[in-house]
């Protein structure tokens, strides 16, 4: 048994010392002057990239540079919905690659990320919704990805709190169900990848901000930070809402705009909500955490902002819809509200791959829905950095698609923020 693995024996051993001697899950390191690869941004995607670089490609001289604390960005602010029922073959391949990594991730990382495949149900409230959802179901099933249609009664059987009264403000005409979908514990995903990467020698550098990308001509040299220059021949920028800012220092302009996206949680209650429910039409999505809180996601503000606040009218609209769908929650109190800054692309698909600057790679534009992709994104981005060419699954998602016009329009799949 490897030292430091989490196990029942370790639990017993540490119980004897009152749980005061657990080693830190990842070490605090002094930044070196140079690394083979620098990952900018210690969210789930950046940490996963570093882990897979070390674990699968033998690239261990890697630093993850995070300006705040790891997982403090959108990774720790999202509503953790995981699914792969997108519309286009390129996206289905990308998101399903991630979905297939989730079930065994706790084992792989030796960290309980609490993945729960409790099923994601997407509601149809009118004929248009119904057609769109059914089109997704067919597209998914043609590619062997599970997704099926439920009648209103079946939807209610799957999620008893749902109001299916035909006279309801938002009548439920049916739903699409992806049973392999679900949720996971967001913090644990960041911590689990950080711990596993640290054990393979990756440096997790928290509290260090990248101020600029250094380049000479069309070649990248390293990053300037508030702790000095760190040299690297390969740099992966994985900073979500700050992509335009960080890559702007290298002279790049991106097809991305940053918007606040809000979520809220209720007071904890006993298990009452067995699955995840989303409604694109009324812009609401909801699940129950293992702590018992209802986790509710709202929409984005309509204007570019880095304020991490979000307008009150956005959550008001969202909660009105939630209560129409689930009247039993009318008397629940809300405990917390927050926003993350999401990086939205014109076609609602991410941007992964090289940039016009050699050695500089981008993984961004996951917008309102990238948590679900965390393992897959890291896995494929690590491959891309290791081979210095895009992995076939991410190749269609390059920055060049905006010039070629080959957009991957997922605005129907991602119309709601999730």
């Amino acid at each position, binding site marked *: 048994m490897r030292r430091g693995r989490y196990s029942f024996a370790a639990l017993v051993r540490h119980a004897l010392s009152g749980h005061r001697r657990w080693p830190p899950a990842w070490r605090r390191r002094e930044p070196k002057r140079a690394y083979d690869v620098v990952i900018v941004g210690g969210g789930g995607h950046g940490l996963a990239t570093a882990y897979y670089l070390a674990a699968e490609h033998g690239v261990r001289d890697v630093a993850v540079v995070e300006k705040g604390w790891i997982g403090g960005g959108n990774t720790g602010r999202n509503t953790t919905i995981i699914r792969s029922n997108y519309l286009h073959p390129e996206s289905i391949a990308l998101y399903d690659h991630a979905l297939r990594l989730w079930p065994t991730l706790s084992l792989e990382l030796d960290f309980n990320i609490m993945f729960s495949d409790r099923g994601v149900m997407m509601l149809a409230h009118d004929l248009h919704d119904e057609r769109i959802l059914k089109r997704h179901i067919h597209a998914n099933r043609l590619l062997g990805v599970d997704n099926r249609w439920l009648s209103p009664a079946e939807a209610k059987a799957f999620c008893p709190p749902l109001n299916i009264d035909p006279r309801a403000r938002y009548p439920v005409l049916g739903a699409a169900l992806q049973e392999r979908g679900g949720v996971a514990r967001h913090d644990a995903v960041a911590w689990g990848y950080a711990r596993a990467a640290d054990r393979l020698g990756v440096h997790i550098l928290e509290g260090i901000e990248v101020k600029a990308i250094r380049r000479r001509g069309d070649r990248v040299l390293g990053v300037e930070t508030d702790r000095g220059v760190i040299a690297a021949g390969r740099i992966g920028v994985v900073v979500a809402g700050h992509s335009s800012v960080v890559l702007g220092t290298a002279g790049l302009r991106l097809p*991305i705009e940053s918007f606040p996206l809000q979520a809220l949680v209720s007071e904890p209650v006993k298990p009452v909500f067995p699955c995840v429910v989303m409604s694109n039409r009324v812009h609401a999505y909801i699940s129950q955490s293992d702590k018992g809180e209802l986790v509710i996601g709202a929409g984005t503000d309509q204007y570019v902002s*880095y304020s991490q606040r979000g*307008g009150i009218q956005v959550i008001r609209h969202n909660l009105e819809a939630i209560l129409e769908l689930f009247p039993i929650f009318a008397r629940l109190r809300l405990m917390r509200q927050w926003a993350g800054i999401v990086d939205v692309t014109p076609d609602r698909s991410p941007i992964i791959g090289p940039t016009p600057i050699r050695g500089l790679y981008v993984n961004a534009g996951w917008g309102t829905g990238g948590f679900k992709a965390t393992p897959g994104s890291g896995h494929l981005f690590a491959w891309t950095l290791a081979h210095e060419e895009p992995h076939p699954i991410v190749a269609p998602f390059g920055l060049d698609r905006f010039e070629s016009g080959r957009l991957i329009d997922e605005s129907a799949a991602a119309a709601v923020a999730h």
Partner: protein
Amino acid sequence: MLEIPCPFCGPRPEVEFRCGGEADIRRPADPDRCSDRAWTDYLWNRTNPKGVHRERWWHVHGCRRWFVVSRHTVSDTILAVSDSGQTAQPQETAADG
């Protein structure tokens, strides 16, 4: 929620408005002749600044006119408002921070 000073109606709550995104985006004069890169830049690339943003707003539930707002994207403070009929000024003034 923002309070937006419509240059025609005065300050009103954000719910009366629709945001039209970044201002000062000019269509290339001769699309047939401009490079793919210039066309891409016009169609898709955005400044998305962490700082002062010049953006278009539409008073859809009011006078239904368009105008331009300069807003700081960290504090969301509105720094200036102008009638969009005027030619766009390059942003040079307001403090960045």
